[in-house]
């Protein structure tokens, strides 16, 4: 994965309340103090960069935005200066009411807990294979050699394509991530080209299916109907691109962040090894404290967030990770408490755009941590090597160098 710092000609931020930048090196490295400061003195920050963006940092205000799709549209879920010059809808994440509901409903049956259950043993096997490859090495990179491979292989298994295609998916993800970082007309063009490559990839698999009776996600989408009709090509391939991309770097970010936390917090690591029943609350706490995803909305009509006027056409960064650290919503919000009992976190979003894959993501995180801890109950952070964090709207460690063994 690329370790390059954000390439931007925008000046470093000096005023986070009136001129914030989510691609600024300080935000990328450690956004939490920035959000804590804003929450106290200017809970809805603004910037004129990227054509104008608002940033609510309190849970209550993030909720208000999430629950008001009439004012805040999902048409553009990513904040960027150079959006692609062709529309690349990925329903339902890019959809608004009234189209949103039917396009979401058709995906839901594939991601219920019951539908995900058969992939638990598949995920365990994938994790075990990755751990076999690390073998008896005394050190490794828990992000590069482990976390980053789990979701690509699981989604390949769900799509019914070879798991070895996971490397191709990682390349596509890398290009989309690089595009977010560079944010130039050229990088946008590359991203469009990659989207077309994905469409062609899926087309080959669709054509190879004699019927659409399979349990895989591609066959499932071939059977899907919208208002009683087959999906349009634009809808079909857009939704498949979403299913492919949305669960990859998001999930690997949380697995990586959890392993990073456990590597540097021996008390939590030992406790989780000794009391595996804590895994359920621990996973939710990792999701809260290291929520990877910040979504975006576009203001559809002039309105307000917590009394701050917002202008139509400008964007809103829906900082779910900031909301999850709001002391008004969580006691000891800045502490990671692996047996936290009350945890209404918003890592998967709130309202009609709740992450469709949340049951899948939660399962992958839990299984990946369980299998890792079974194999390597003792590991610590390799302090001589840096941990770098992904820039953009999906935050997670791109490298987690660890030393294995007591």
């Amino acid at each position, binding site marked *: 994965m690329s370790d390059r710092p954000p390439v931007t000609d925008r000046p470093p931020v000096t005023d986070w309340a009136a001129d914030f930048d989510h691609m600024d090196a300080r935000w990328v490295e450690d956004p939490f103090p920035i959000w804590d400061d804003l929450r106290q003195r200017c809970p809805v920050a603004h910037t004129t960069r990227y054509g104008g963006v608002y940033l609510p940092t309190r849970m209550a205000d993030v909720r208000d935005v999430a629950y008001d799709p009439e004012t805040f549209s999902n048409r553009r879920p990513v904040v960027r200066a150079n959006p692609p010059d062709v529309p690349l809808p990925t329903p339902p994440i890019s959809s608004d009411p009234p189209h949103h509901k039917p396009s979401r409903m058709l995906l*839901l*049956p594939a991601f*219920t807990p019951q539908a995900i259950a058969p992939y638990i043993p598949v995920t365990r096997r994938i994790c075990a294979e990755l751990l076999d490859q690390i073998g008896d090495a005394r050190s490794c990179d828990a992000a590069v050699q482990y976390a980053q491979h789990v979701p690509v292989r699981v989604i390949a298994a769900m799509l019914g394509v070879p798991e070895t295609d996971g490397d191709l998916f990682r390349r596509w993800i890398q290009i989309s991530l690089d595009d977010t970082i560079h944010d130039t007309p050229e990088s946008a063009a590359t991203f469009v080209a990659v989207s077309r490559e994905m469409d062609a990839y899926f087309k080959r698999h669709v054509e190879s299916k004699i019927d659409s009776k399979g349990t895989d996600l591609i066959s499932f989408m071939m059977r899907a109907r919208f208002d009683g009709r087959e999906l349009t090509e634009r809808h079909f391939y857009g939704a498949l691109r979403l299913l492919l991309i949305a669960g990859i770097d998001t999930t690997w970010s949380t697995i990586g962040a959890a392993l990073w936390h456990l590597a540097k917090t021996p008390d939590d690591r030992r406790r989780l090894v000794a009391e595996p029943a804590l895994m359920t609350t621990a996973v*939710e706490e990792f999701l809260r404290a290291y929520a990877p995803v910040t979504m975006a909305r576009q203001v559809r009509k002039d309105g307000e967030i917590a009394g701050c006027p917002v202008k139509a056409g400008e964007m809103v960064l829906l900082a779910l990770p900031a909301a999850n650290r709001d002391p008004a919503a969580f006691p000891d919000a800045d502490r990671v408490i692996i047996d936290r009992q009350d*945890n209404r976190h918003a890592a998967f979003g709130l*309202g009609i755009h709740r992450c469709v894959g949340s049951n899948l993501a939660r399962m992958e995180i839990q299984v990946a941590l369980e299998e890792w801890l079974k194999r390597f109950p003792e590991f610590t952070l390799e302090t001589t090597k840096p941990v770098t964090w992904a820039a953009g709207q999906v935050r997670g460690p791109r490298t987690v160098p660890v030393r294995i063994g007591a």
Partner: protein
Amino acid sequence: MPDPLKPAWRLVVDPEKCQGHNRCQALAPDLFRVDDLGFASATGDTMPDAMLEKATLAVRNCPEFAIRLVRVGQGDEV
């Protein structure tokens, strides 16, 4: 002597608010079921005091504030 198994509470999932996070069913599988789309509902009309702790945990972990716990015959919520 109060009977801990006497129906004492009603557990109500608001279908307008539930978005299918599935936190309730994961925490209290005896008290909640999810349908083919992933939306939750209570498994029974009422539940006894013995289940109160589990039910409260589910209420307090619902990100959408979609679950209510009402004392039978009194309308009090916790």
